[in-house]
């Protein structure tokens, strides 16, 4: 809830015309806040997130019903989309250009942001790991699988459990399309082929916002994680221990040009 006003403002600024929200049983005033927004449609459910394939069934239905023929941006509330020139070129500029290029999708890798000092100190989330990402091609879907980053470096024992950071959040939707696994991969397969040198953005991920250790304790108890929740006990324990993720190698978030120079996103010919 505390991050929603910022979330709305940022993406309104990018030119999002209408927001479709799914509220999965919040009790912190989220629904009330969203209900009074002029550009928000709100769906509420108390059903299980895990049972709905981590919300994908809900999102899939909304996309099918309402997004056909539109460019649709699918985000979690802790994600912020940025892309090359985002301050001067809104999503309309980007999507018109993508249309002209014959591209129906736009990838944006998740970038975990973390604070200096212990998580519980609540300092600003403005640091990130710039160059510890493991990339491989998944043969069946021909999609890229990017893992790693700060979570693999500092919180996970087993690199195979590293978070999937690849995302295709912006798609010119067709009712025959379907996300397969969160917004990490999509069908038909050709929509995963965005690694030919084209443009890409970044989803700034507020995973480690103030209160992350206590949220980790709740999530551990709720056992709604992807895959087998028991495999992530060590991860939750590491978070609950309120670690320091920042180190001398950490980069402070600058602008998109910094992220492009570091090779995390690309203009892909859109200059």
């Amino acid at each position, binding site marked *: 809830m505390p991050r929603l006003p910022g979330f709305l403002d940022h993406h309104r600024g990018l030119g999002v015309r209408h927001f479709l929200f799914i509220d999965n049983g919040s009790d912190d005033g989220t629904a009330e806040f969203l209900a009074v927004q002029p550009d928000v449609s709100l769906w509420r459910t108390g059903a299980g997130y895990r049972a709905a394939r981590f919300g994908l069934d809900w999102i899939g239905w909304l996309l099918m019903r309402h997004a056909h023929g539109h460019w649709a941006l699918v985000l979690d509330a802790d994600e912020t989309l940025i892309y090359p*020139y985002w301050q*001067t*070129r*809104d999503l*309309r*500029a980007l999507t*018109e*250009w993508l249309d*002209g*290029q014959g591209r129906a999708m736009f*990838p*944006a*890798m998740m970038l975990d942001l973390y604070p200096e000092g212990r998580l519980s100190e609540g300092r600003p989330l403005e640091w990130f*790991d*710039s*160059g*510890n*990402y*493991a*990339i*491989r*091609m998944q043969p069946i879907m021909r999609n*890229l699988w*990017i*893992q*790693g*980053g*700060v979570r*693999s*470096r500092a919180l996970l*024992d*087993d*690199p*195979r459990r*590293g978070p999937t950071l*690849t995302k295709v959040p912006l798609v010119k939707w067709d009712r025959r399309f379907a996300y397969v696994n969160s917004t990490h991969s999509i069908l038909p397969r050709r929509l995963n082929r*965005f*690694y*030919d*040198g*084209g*443009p*890409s953005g970044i989803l700034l991920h507020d995973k480690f916002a103030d209160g992350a250790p206590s949220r980790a304790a709740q999530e551990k108890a709720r056992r709604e994680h992807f895959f087998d929740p028991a495999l992530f006990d060590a991860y939750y324990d590491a978070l609950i221990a309120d670690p320091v993720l920042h*180190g*001398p*190698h*950490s980069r402070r978030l600058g602008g998109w040009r910094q992220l492009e120079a570091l*090779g*995390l*996103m*690309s*203009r*892909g*010919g859109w*200059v």
Partner: protein
Amino acid sequence: MTVGFIMLCHTAFDRAAQVARYWAEAGSPVVIHVDASVKAQPFQRLESQLEDLANVRFSDRFACEWGSWGLVAATQGAATLMLRDFAQVDHIFLASGSCLPLRPVADLEAYLDARPGTDFIESVTTEDVGWTVGGLDRERFTLRFPFSWRSQRALFDGYVRLQRRVGFSRRIPAGIEPHLGSQWWCLTRDTLAAILNSPDRQAHDAYFRRVWIPDESYFQSLVRRYSGKIESRSLTLSKFDFQGKPHIFYDDHLGLLRRSDCFVARKIWPHAGQLYKTFLAPDGKRVMAEPNPGRIDKLFSKAVDRRVNGRPGLYMQSRFPDREFENGRTAAPYSTFQGFAEVFPEFQTWLGRMTGALVHGHLFAPDRVHFAGGDAVFHGGLSDSARLRDYNPRSFLTSLLWNARGERQCFQTGPADNQALNEFMAGDVNAQISVVSGAFALPLFRSGLPFAEVRKEVARLQKIEAAHLALLRASWVKARVRIWPLAEFLENPMDPLQTIVEEIAPRLRPRLTEVPRMADFSGFGRFLQDLRNQGMQPTLMGDYPASDDFNPGRDRPFLVS
């Protein structure tokens, strides 16, 4: 001197109206052609927006599909109208609805005045163009193209292939020498009238009607016949991406467009309010400068290059090249050393001192990543965890080299390390791989382990190293590979070291005066003989003398060669 503008419009009519008004109010007649496929309502809206302007006309409408004759027909119609209705016009400037004037009309008129009778039109012979879409240049003029390139690509390509096979060729009418160029030109009244009123006009039109993309060749070819003075360049700034599609200018290009000093730019994003506001301001400043698109060329040619080739050694979400299609497997040259640290215990620090490079230990050691200085985390957040590294060794190495761009990286390798990247590095032009083969046995000899265990381990590592060496000798290897058997290396270590050091730091011109301290080899020859006696064949060490007395480290003087 008066310039008249022809505007070919098919979308963003409010912006087109703004630009038309700007030119018309500056005293330049404007003839607007609106694509026939545009519906009545937006067309009427455009008409009504401009109805107060006496020097604006609308010409007969043709359907203007990309690359079709309609674009030429539309231009001809508008030009005829311009010549008929506006006798004062001396130059006709062809623009589109998404063009934006960057300089006042008076500037353009002064520029044209200073170059009387000159036609500004890019006109290049088919042999000399390098930019044609679809790879067709001369054949545009000699084949037939009944199918659409955009919507019937397979038929288009198939029909081109068929015509090539049967040797079909259209006859080019006499007097026409095919030329190509940007469709945005500025012609003199005389030249344009000569083209439009030519006695051969019918024959020209009949011929070009079936040429592919005639809007890039009709006027470009005919000016060669009718113009007295051609300046082969366009006064319209227009940049193309790697697919041949025009770059779009946004608000953030404001400074760039100003610096270009060009008269007109296309294509402008219709919502680039800042650009329209700035350049259509009534008090536009006059700059008596030569248009200089070269000033901004670099940005766009760099963008095309990066779009096509990417950045060397970078693997990321929107660029993950197939093997052999990389623009360099890794980001920068690097050197690997096998066996050197065994021969010279202080090799790492010594090499760093001699070359200024960052010298790591065994990056692929089984226990952990031995970063230089024993760091637990390297640039970019690379962890020293062996599990993380071994989960995706290729990403580990390419990330390390990408993250450390600008600083030469060296590291140790060995047969006890993870061997997963041997092939990757062998095929990498950036890799400089140096091996003293068989040196891995020295620490085992000194380990104090029971002989039977040592024998087994030497045999195992020798097998691994032998396989690696075989790989390094393959014909496809692109790395700079140097291999010395241990015995040969010990005979004269100075030359190999000098070569290596020079290769890493050519600008430092390091001159070796002495080799670093050597390990104690006494007894190693006997040890190798013992291995032989036990039925094992140590082959990678070369002709190492079995005599216990051989001790190259102690009393052989090494001098500068």
